[in-house]
């Protein structure tokens, strides 16, 4: 999401950067381009107008900073406005002093309420809560059945009964208190904002539940109508925020900007894929950076921390240090990286990655093939790749549905990697020892600092690594060491 918008801004700002001075006509031209870029990204017309005027006010009205050239000032103004429009801080989820904490989900048909109810329940479980899903969509055929299947997938019980939505809500509250469930996520039927009868019904559900959070689920591909929808739902339900779904497509996500602007409530979560784990909290400030092509390294680091298994990392480090990194270890490392989601999502978070690379659907297939090849080897072969002769290669290629040349290539690459590791292995061992000493430095009285020597090798290694992702992963490995 937002890639197209960020490409457009990149183009506009690219031309700006080379300019020494901006005349009033230049500013008008830039603002016109920004207007078109936003409209093409489906930002609501009214929101676009207000946005452009605020940028104009910032650019024209403010004291010109000496440190920035005019182009940079425009970029700064747009960035500031994007952050302001998208909502500033991340929505904080707090819990009701008297459980259960109730979350009501609402939205148009097909926006993704049921799927996202399950994803949100899974998220609460990960926060150490004890959630329950409530199926109050008695309208769409098999909606409750869908919720039950999803509930099973995420390990959260589902409550529903064949009465009416308001009664289900009432009974669910009693059930939650009975069973000691501390969070309720209530899925409701899709409804049109102009359907007064159904809007009144969701109002009654709200009155019964007295929800702590009410989320509107909005399809990221929504056009200009997003504003009308958000305003109506907000008027009936007093929304806490928005869950933006289907952001893994190439939608330009203008709805996200519009909705925040008109209802003044933030995007709380985004749904980034079809799997139940493809769901994360939304950080408006970081998203503004991504739109402007500045990457989102913070989210990347969090993703690494959340997904990278520290035991596996420690084992790999050990193997690495002892020069015994096998194809099995390699496979495990690969699985770790893949756990973080599609590679394209990860690439999108890196700053300065050219748009060709960001748009390409990279790697998944190649990774799959590599995995198939390794899995077609015997355990002995994985430990001793040198033992794989010609006939074994043919067998592995057949077993993995690849060609012998692909097997050859993988083995060759692995061999070179091992060589490289052996060469680096000595250095890494020293780093590890030093960092342990460095940890000792932490317990020295206040004012004691790490010596330059203990910091430098680590930095060296980071800067030597060309690939920022592996640099981060490497750093993660080291950071976990002292706690093991």
């Amino acid at each position: 999401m937002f890639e197209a918008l960020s490409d457009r801004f990149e183009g506009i700002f690219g031309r700006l950067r080379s300019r020494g001075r901006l005349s009033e006509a230049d500013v008008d031209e830039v603002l016109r381009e920004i207007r078109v870029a936003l409209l093409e990204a489906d930002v609501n017309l009214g929101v676009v107008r207000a946005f452009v005027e605020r940028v104009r006010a910032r650019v024209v009205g403010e004291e010109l900073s000496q440190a920035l050239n005019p182009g940079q000032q425009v970029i700064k103004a747009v960035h500031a406005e994007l952050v302001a429009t998208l909502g500033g801080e991340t929505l904080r989820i707090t819990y009701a002093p008297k459980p259960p904490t109730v979350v009501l989900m609402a939205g148009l048909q097909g926006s993704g309420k049921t799927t996202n109810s399950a994803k949100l329940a899974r998220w609460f479980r990960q926060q150490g809560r004890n959630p329950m899903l409530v199926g109050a969509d008695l309208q769409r055929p098999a909606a409750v059945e869908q919720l039950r299947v999803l509930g099973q997938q995420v390990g959260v019980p589902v409550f529903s009964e064949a009465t009416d939505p308001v009664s289900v809500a009432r009974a669910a509250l009693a059930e939650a208190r009975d069973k000691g469930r501390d969070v309720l996520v209530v899925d409701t039927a899709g409804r049109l904002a102009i359907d007064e009868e159904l809007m009144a019904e969701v109002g009654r559900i709200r009155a019964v539940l007295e929800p702590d959070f009410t989320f509107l689920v909005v399809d990221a591909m929504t056009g200009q109508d997003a504003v009308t929808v958000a305003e109506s739902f907000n008027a009936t339900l007093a929304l806490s925020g928005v869950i933006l779904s289907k952001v893994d497509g190439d939608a330009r996500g203008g709805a996200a900007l519009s909705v925040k602007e008109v209802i003044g409530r933030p995007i709380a979560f985004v749904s980034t894929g079809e799997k139940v784990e493809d769901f994360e909290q939304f950080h408006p400030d970081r998203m503004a950076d991504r739109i402007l092509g500045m990457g989102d390294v913070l989210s990347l680091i969090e993703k690494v921390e959340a997904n990278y298994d520290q035991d596996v990392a420690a084992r790999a480090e050990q193997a690495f240090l002892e020069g015994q990194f096998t194809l099995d270890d390699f496979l495990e490392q690969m699985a770790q990286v893949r756990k973080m989601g599609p590679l394209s999502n990860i690439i999108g978070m890196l700053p300065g990655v050219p748009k060709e690379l960001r748009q390409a659907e990279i790697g998944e297939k190649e990774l799959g093939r590599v995995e198939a090849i390794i899995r077609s080897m015997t355990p002995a072969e994985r430990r001793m790749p040198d033992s794989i002769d010609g006939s074994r290669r043919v067998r592995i290629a057949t077993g993995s549905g690849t060609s012998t040349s692909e097997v050859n290539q993988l083995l060759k690459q692995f061999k070179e990697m091992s060589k490289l590791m052996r060469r680096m292995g000595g250095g890494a061992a020293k780093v590890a020892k030093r960092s342990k000493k460095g940890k000792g430095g932490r317990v020295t009285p206040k004012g004691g600092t790490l010596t330059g020597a203990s910091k430098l090798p680590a930095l060296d290694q980071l800067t030597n690594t060309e690939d920022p992702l592996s640099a981060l992963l490497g750093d993660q490995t080291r950071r976990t060491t002292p706690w093991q």
Partner: protein
Amino acid sequence: MAAPLRAIRGGRAIDAATWDELEAVLLSADVGVATTAAVLDELRADVAADGISEPSALVDQLKVRLRQRLGDGDRGLHLAPKGTNVWLFVGVNGVGKTTTIGKVAAHQVRLGRSVVLAAGDTFRAAAVDQLATWAERSGADIVRGNEGGDPAAVVFDAVARATARGADVVLADTAGRLHTKSNLMEELRKLRRVAERETGVVSECLLVLDATTGQNGLVQARQFAEAAGVTGVVLTKLDGSAKGGIVLAVQEQLGIPVKLVGVGEGIDDLVAFDPDDFVGALFD
């Protein structure tokens, strides 16, 4: 949008504000920046050539121009004379494919045709159950596979059953997929191939498009057309506040006509697309 338009119609002369208002009407209906600019350029030329001076005449001429853009393409649903007819329903997640199939099935059954539904959405939880409910409501037969199974196999089986029973048409549901997922689009290609492997003939491939969709709708249409050979659009949820203006670009750039319109959740809430009504509604 009603208020500004009344202001235009009631205005004395065509001025910059009139043009701004017209632009706002079109942009707010998701017509898109490029199409809006092109239509308004045409309209300016018309004003110069025909000496249009009344704002209300200007609006009428704009409607004529928009109506032209929708063309007079073939909006019927077709059955091939030979073979077992398959109508494929494709689209992104949540646009209303399953519901649309239920309505089309009911309509075809009412016309006296025998219909087999192929529950090809084996991915979304309970999608098969949802379609089974519609089969029951509409009086159509249904062929279902296993959840997580191969959708192409389900469609293949449905074609086989329809052929064996001499049914008139197979309505094939597919899992919602974002057009950016190349593996899923590849799966759709395969599904179409498999549908036609023996007796089947895909005589319609309908892209279901949600009227609330913005500019992304054009990209969706392009990708699905490329993968599955789309013959028409079903514009759903047009009973809400969204106008579905993106179909203008879909018609113009890809030559894909809107054939049907979804206007509610009931079994009869599916009507033939009427271009005049559609253009009129942009200005409501």
